[in-house]
């Protein structure tokens, strides 16, 4: 059993305030709550630095895994079933150990995917909050191990996992740094930046239902304040014409639209570009939430909802410095 999931009899219930918030955000709040408490699907991404989707798929099916393709990403698969005779409920597979595949939630694959065009020929990319490296390894794969990927994280304790994942996936083009983005030295600019910001992780409740026990609206303010400092610094490090992708696995407008709204107010030449991923229709950013109103331009942001997209809750803003 997943040690993060309490058994069914003890599934936590949603705090009243959280339920009220969902009523203000979606037309089917019950469906959202239900989706957030159901177990997530297992999924993986193929690492093109070491193999290709056909070979990885063939090998996994040969083991007896039942795979489902993902309509919006040829490199991703859902593991609908492991072989029935597996010695463990989640068996360890050779392609995992060799870094041919990386177990990764589908929503977490979206930010690098939406940057595919830029990453294909980028000379320098900054992954500002990179540990444990799911998106960094995907970025390196999309860069085909060319150019420079700076994979940074402030928490020293998480750098080890970042190193481990980058090495396992055969990433050659990365330099790992251990720095607080807020104090990142000026000078060098980056044409592509991913800011996968620290957040309340509300969108990952399917995997971490225990987060419900800690959920508290007042925590959102602390997150928002840090996220705002991070987005402003990241934007300042962006080359003119460059693109910054801001993402969180939170559903809360305070951590998402409100942060982008502040960037729009505090910096010049900001354009929020629409996000399009063929095969999945993401929901637009919200321009109002309870008694907050945001700049209309945040509607170009995108959100994945667990009950609509059957992936973790996720938010993305594609920001261009024009």
């Amino acid at each position, binding site marked *: 059993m997943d040690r993060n999931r309490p058994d069914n009899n003890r599934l936590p219930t949603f705090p009243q305030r959280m339920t009220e918030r969902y009523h203000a955000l979606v037309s089917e709040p019950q469906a959202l709550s239900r989706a957030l408490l159901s177990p997530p699907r297992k999924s993986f991404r193929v690492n093109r*630095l*070491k193999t290709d989707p056909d070979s990885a798929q063939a090998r996994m099916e040969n*083991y007896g*895994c039942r795979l489902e393709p993902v309509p919006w990403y040829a490199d991703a698969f859902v593991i609908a079933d492991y*072989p029935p005779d*597996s*010695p*463990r409920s989640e*068996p*360890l*597979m*050779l392609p995992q*150990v*060799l*870094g*041919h595949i990386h177990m990764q939630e589908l929503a977490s694959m979206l930010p690098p995917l939406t940057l595919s065009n830029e990453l294909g020929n980028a*000379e*320098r990319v900054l992954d500002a909050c990179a540990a444990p490296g799911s998106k960094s390894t995907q970025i390196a794969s999309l860069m085909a191990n*060319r*150019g*420079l*990927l*700076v994979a*940074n994280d402030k928490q020293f304790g998480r*750098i080890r996992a970042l*190193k481990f994942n*980058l*090495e*396992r996936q*055969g*990433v*050659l*083009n*990365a*330099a*790992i*740094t*251990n*720095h607080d983005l807020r104090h*990142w*030295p000026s*000078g*060098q600019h980056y044409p592509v930046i991913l800011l996968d910001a620290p957040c309340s992780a509300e969108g990952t409740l399917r995997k971490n239902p225990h987060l419900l026990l800690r959920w508290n609206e007042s925590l959102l303010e602390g997150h928002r304040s840090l996220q705002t400092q991070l987005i402003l610094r990241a934007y300042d490090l962006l080359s003119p014409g460059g693109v910054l992708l801001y993402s969180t696995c939170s559903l809360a407008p305070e951590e998402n639209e409100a942060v982008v709204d502040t960037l729009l107010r505090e910096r010049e030449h900001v354009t929020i570009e629409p996000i399009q991923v063929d095969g999945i229709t993401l929901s637009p950013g919200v321009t109002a939430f309870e008694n907050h109103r945001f700049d209309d331009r945040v509607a170009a942001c995108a959100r994945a909802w667990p009950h609509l997209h059957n992936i973790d809750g996720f938010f993305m803003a594609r920001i261009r410095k024009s």
Partner: protein
Amino acid sequence: MMICPDDIRSRVVGYLMQRFGMRESLWQDYEFYQSSRGRIHLGPCELPDRPKPDSVGCLIARLQRTVKPSSALFQLFGQYVQREILNLDRDQTQRYLAGESLVLATDQIADCRPGFVMLRYDVLPLACGLLREGGQLENQLPRASWCRVDLL
């Protein structure tokens, strides 16, 4: 981490060419870096000015009395290795990845000379191993990566 001095780079590149037939052009898009403990990394040609990186690219070898190639090197560039390839069967692969050293039969090691070899299972490059005279295959995997693989 600093850029490898030319003599060290040549020593590593020469060894990989001589023993494994890995041609020099494989490395042309990357830079060689060296850490204080003789660890050789293959990484990007450009690095950020500041902040200084903690680590760069992938560990491809350790400099000891000889050059010791890493498992990461073979896992990534294994298709370009031309000799000193040792094929393991399923059971041997499982045991090797779990950290065991193995004793192999003479016919299984017929194509390899003693020294570092690339281990392979099916068509997949697995790891680096150290083959001794007489068929002893010494496990070279770091303890932290030992694992019990269920599906292979």
